[in-house]
């Protein structure tokens, strides 16, 4: 398992997890890694919790792993949930987007607000991203997944060129420019400051 990096992408079905995972996988391949990935489809798509996984390294066998080095979450509660997957001292890059599940809509449950606390207990580094705001700025809120991916580039070992090539390969031509803008905005928004976002 050593030498293999596992990235889990968590979110709500319909948020574009699969496209984000495809871009990430393409990037890792462009950067010369062996890559395995796994996605969840079917019933899980209808607004349920979904997790896709991308693993890269010198030689990768399994497409899944119960433990992630990095979690990219397109929704805050799903980011909170995915803490369970994250290795101690791992990084959680998450969209501050809130999509209330049914039990919260019906007021049977409260939307959890203990992310920071839970992350601290696990020594997890949090990277909150206003992915929807950035995507809207880029031209469509639907590009939030790609904006978030842009923000995650700082904790991934890929050169900018690899990301550019991957975007072109994975994103349909019609919406490529929009997604490039969203990606760049996300990347800029999460750029390391002096306190440092270091891996």
């Amino acid at each position, binding site marked *: 398992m050593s030498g293999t990096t596992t990235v889990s992408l968590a979110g*709500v*079905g319909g948020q574009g997890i699969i496209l984000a995972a495809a871009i990430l996988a393409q990037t890792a391949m462009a950067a010369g890694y062996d890559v395995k990935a796994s996605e969840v*489809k*079917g*019933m*899980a*798509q*209808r*607004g*349920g*919790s979904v997790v896709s996984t991308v693993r890269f390294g010198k030689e990768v066998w399994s497409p899944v792993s119960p433990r992630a080095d990095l979690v990219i979450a397109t929704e805050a*509660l*799903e980011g*909170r*949930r995915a*803490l*369970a997957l994250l290795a101690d001292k791992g990084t959680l890059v998450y969209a501050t987007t809130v*999509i*209330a*599940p*049914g*039990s*919260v*809509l*019906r*007021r049977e*449950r*409260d*939307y*959890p607000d203990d992310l920071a606390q*839970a992350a601290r207990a696990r020594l997890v580094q949090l990277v909150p991203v206003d992915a929807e705001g950035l995507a809207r700025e880029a031209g469509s809120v639907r590009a939030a997944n790609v904006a978030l991916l842009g923000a995650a580039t700082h904790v991934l070992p890929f050169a900018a060129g690899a990301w550019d090539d991957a975007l072109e390969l994975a994103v349909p031509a019609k919406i490529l420019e929009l997604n490039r803008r969203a990606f760049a905005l996300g990347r800029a928004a999460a750029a390391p400051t002096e306190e440092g976002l270091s891996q």
Partner: protein
Amino acid sequence: MTCAACCMGVEFAVAAGFPAGRGRTCRYNQRVDRISGSSVERVPFLSGNEAIARGAVRAGLGFACGYPGTPSTEIVEELARLEGPVVEWCINEKVALETGAGAALAGARAMVTMKHVGLNVAADPFMTLALTGVNGGLVVVSADDPGMHSSQNEQDNRHFAAFAKVPMLEPSDSQEAYDFVAWAFDLSEEFDTPVLLRSTTRVSHGRGRVVPRAPVTAERPGYVKDIAKYVMVPEYARERNRLMLARLERLRRRSEESPLNVLEAGTTDIGIIASGAAYTYAREAFPKAWFLKLGMSHPLPYGKVVRLYESVSRVFVVEELDPFIEDQVRALGLPVVGKEVIPSNGELDQEVVFDALEPVLKRKPPRRRRPVLPPAPVIVPAPRPADDLPVRPPVLCPGCPHRAVYAMLRREKVAVMGDIGCYTLGALPPLLSLESCVCMGASIGLMSGINRRMGRTAAVAVIGDSTFFHSGVTPLIDARYNETPGLVIVLDNRTTAMTGHQGHPGTGIHPDRSSGPALDIEQLCRGIGVPAQTVDAFDEPAVRTAIRDAVAANDLRVLIALAPCILMDKGPHEQVLVDDDRCNLCGLCIELGCPALVAGDDAVEILSDCTGCGVCLAVCARGALSLPEGGEGS
């Protein structure tokens, strides 16, 4: 001890599980004793199939169906001559099993008959009914055809019992065929599982004297709505799967204790494990051998196998077709002779068995070996998330036309049999509108079974357009043929939505998005003589009226609730407006489970993904919800 194996109630001596003194079990000797008395003339001489039919009626059978297929056909034919059960031919074995399961769900003891290849057709419901369980007893009779007297293949359906993890009984003659049916029903109800009763040509079409037994009378259960048990969406199916695996271990212990699995002492140093017709051949070929006679041949009673090995130094497995038992014995690390001498194809008989085993007896007996019993398998429990976070199950989208139909349906007092698709999500809270989901197309057969049992439209079926074409047409024809009352609601959203909007015969759309002829469901229904009506799924009064009329009419109807999948309608959409003064947060609209409706502090709030479908308007009792002027829903 009473000999329960032959159900004769005759006392005989047993020491440590072995019959002592007479050197034989009571099974045959005592039966001969009984019938050599004055009652000989009155003992019927029945084929195995007739015996299965009569044994089923004796066991309180309420419903039977099947599709004709040699050598199974005479069971339903005989049942039709007997008093008691509702009996019908079905359009095929899959529909038969679903209909039988429906009758069992409604509390009947139900039997479904077919030939071996018929179980291939019925495999879809068979595999999942093993998860849901049955309520009333459900016995599936598979009549196999070794030698292919009248079949296109020679498949060994014992594998199906292992495959589906259900118990299997194998009678070896007519008396057992008669007796085992009651055992099968008892097992089915005690363990809440379908039971496979496996016969072969020589059992089904062999004849023997059958001593009748006293009829079984028991109070029948009623239909019980239990969504988590009968709606096999992933979350519920995972739990049922765990229960099924645990049940298999309990069944193995039962098999160990079962009087149907008899260790028969012999007077030579030969042991033979056999079941069904093969047992009768081996018994004649080697009358002095020890036998492990398996009446309940799945799960295999390892302990009894080991006891046989403790009694003799060489053991044979005599079975027709595949090494089903032999492979399991071999896996215990025990030396066994089976398919290396016993033919793998065709039927056996006593001469084949004798000629096969006799040369082996000249070999030196194998060295004794210690058996290695398989340890109990690991069953992973339901994951307990470390953090108590609100779960996020999949939901019907805002604007989904299925929700509109459920909003009406959930108010009616009918059982709603469901099917496979997005609309299965209607079973989840808060809608709780759907009570079964077994396999593609099963909604209609289950509905038929319940309604046949109840004699009225006690259940309706809900099925998507793509699923209807997949396997909803055959059970509808079947319901028409058998004059079964019911209402089939086709939720026609013009696509195969759950898997990502693929085409189907009703849309004519191909994988490359080109389009060909589109079949009209209404016309199709009329073609098979079933009245069909199409309404807009969002037209609440029309949907409600159609449902009520159909339930009251107690005939067979189809209601096509038409509205395209909201995901194919990119908008822009109008959105529902809330009159905060009128809203009192009663929760009626929230109960629709729409992700665009949220309970706010003083009134409900509408989220940005509202599509203005207007279903919530119809349930609001205070007129607090509205669409912008001129809006009329999508």
